[in-house]
């Protein structure tokens, strides 16, 4: 699924040069359930952004599903983000003025899916996350856990193989957080590759593999350790 070779990411603000990622070598297979952990500033979000083609590496090679993506045109990267990747953010990032239905519909619109097919798919994914009765609600009318479920439904809209979640439970209480991770486990069981950034040790231990980052590098070997690596 993902192959990264000598990936580096450097931020250059003119006055300061900062190496967010250094010499990352990483292989991720289909249908893995991975937690990325590490202290603040270790490069977790940067690595996830590269994985999801939200950003491009400063050096190295990145292959997604066997295709080299680090040199692609922005429009091609947009298409990958639309069809191959589903993002779930800590702050949910739902459009506040749009309903649940309209939020979930967005990636389908960008994919050019026709009206009737779109409707079918939206109902399908909302049912998967248990929110088919909240289609008309605006985000302000939903709880934190419900908003994150809408975000997950949105991420699943185009049925991407790869789900990337950046601190998905960071803004939720323990119960809601556990529910969300439960959904991710289900998605993994359904065949998706789920990669999650988390500070929560318990949640990280529910994943099948842990990648530890420190100072922009993978701290636990090359991240290809045994499937059950406990913190």
């Amino acid at each position, binding site marked *: 699924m993902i192959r990264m070779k000598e990936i580096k990411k450097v931020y250059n603000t003119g006055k300061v040069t900062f190496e967010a990622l250094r010499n990352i070598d990483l292989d991720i297979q289909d249908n893995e359930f991975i937690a990325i952990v590490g202290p603040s500033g270790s490069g977790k979000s940067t690595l996830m*952004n590269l994985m*999801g083609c*939200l*950003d491009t590496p400063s050096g190295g090679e990145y292959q997604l599903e066997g295709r080299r993506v680090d040199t692609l045109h*922005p*429009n091609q990267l*947009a*298409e990958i*983000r*639309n*069809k191959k990747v589903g*993002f779930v*953010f800590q702050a949910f*990032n739902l*459009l506040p*003025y*749009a309903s649940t239905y*309209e939020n979930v*519909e*967005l*990636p389908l*619109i*960008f*994919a*050019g899916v*026709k*009206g009737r097919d779109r409707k079918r798919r939206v109902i399908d994914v909302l049912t998967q996350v248990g929110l088919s009765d909240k289609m008309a609600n605006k985000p302000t009318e939903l709880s934190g856990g419900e908003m994150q479920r809408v975000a997950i439904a*949105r991420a699943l809209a*185009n049925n991407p193989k790869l789900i990337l979640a950046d601190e998905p439970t960071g803004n939720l209480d323990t119960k809601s957080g556990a529910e969300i991770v439960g959904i991710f486990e289900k998605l993994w069981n359904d065949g998706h590759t789920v990669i999650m950034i988390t500070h929560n040790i318990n949640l990280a231990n529910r994943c099948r593999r842990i990648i530890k980052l420190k100072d922009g590098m993978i701290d636990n070997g090359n991240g290809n350790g045994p499937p059950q690596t406990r913190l």
Partner: protein
Amino acid sequence: MNPSIIYNVFVRDFQNQKKRMFLTLLAILWGTLSIMILLAFGEGLRKQMLMNTKGLGEGIVIVWGGQTSVPFQGFGKGRRIHLHPEDVDYLKRRMPELEIVVGEYTRWGAEIRYGKKLLSERVDGVYPEFETIRNFRAQMGGRMINKLDMEQKRRVAYVGDKLKERLFGEEMPVEEVVGKTIYINSTPYTVIGVMAHKMQDSSYGGMDQDVIAIPATTFKAIFGDQWLDDLIYKPRDLDNMAAVEKRLFEVMGAKYKFDPDDDRALSTWDIVEQSRVTNSILFGIEIFLGIIGGLTLLIAAVGVTNIMYVSIKERTREIGVKMALGARRIYILMQFIIEALGITFLGGFIGMAIAYIVTELFKRAPIESEVLEMMGRPTVSLEIGITVTIILGLMGFFAGLFPAMKAASVNPTEALRYE
């Protein structure tokens, strides 16, 4: 790009940002209203002024005898050139490029009497062609001097509308005036017609509304004038006025033995040239008014750009989210350009509609005023509508373009972190 994407995302976003758009819309509406009203008044003024210049006559040149300023063929300079009645036929024969040629006599201070009313007025001896070339039209119930009047040297009079009021009173209808007998220097004349009201912004010898016109042949017979006061001609080709005038000097110069290049031998007043100059001045005024209106609209456009920049700043995170979900840069660009165009056209069309209603109400308002007669009523023409629409389109596009380019160049990872 899929049109349904445009509708679904961009139009829906627009509908959801109603509150944000309202004030900007108002600015565009006001700017459009201003430019439309200014252009409409400018157009109305131009049309009225052009109509006013036609009050004296259209496409005509008036010729007076002058004084030679150069010796020629044995004749010294300073010789007076007088116009004769036979010059009319002479010019008709020698200048086929003239459509109409007529002469005119004028006498000031003639005693005009009707009943107990006594006035001292100008009397003109005119040709029947004055009806067309000098706009001596008659009100219903009367007529202008005709060929038979000329041939029979009839003692008939055609009076200006203001003179009619002074002589007969405002209340007496034209049908009653026609047929009445008036006395010009104690000689009885029958009134045959009253001038139809017209606007006139220039004159020679006095405004037509105050004239008493009698047949030129009658005038010569009664007053005994040897010379015409002026000739009036209308060329067939109004684009060749200078050449026609040159030819006139050659033909008259041959008869009266003056140098054709002596421009003091005859005086001419080219109404066509005057109309052109007036038209250019008025066009310039219209453009000036348009520029003022345009600047008002430009300020509104700056407002649109400002609002778009604010909107983009506030929606930075939203842009990042959409990019994360797969929106291409062109979608983001188009979203904001369409929003800017949407605000501009919506505000613009409402402004145009209000301007149209205001000008139509003004046109139909029963206000009788000489000022309005001179200035005309505001007119919203199709050309104005199209011009303003194009201006709105360009404005909206550019007002949205630069903010849109900024939005589309946003780095999605930075945008997602934006608070």
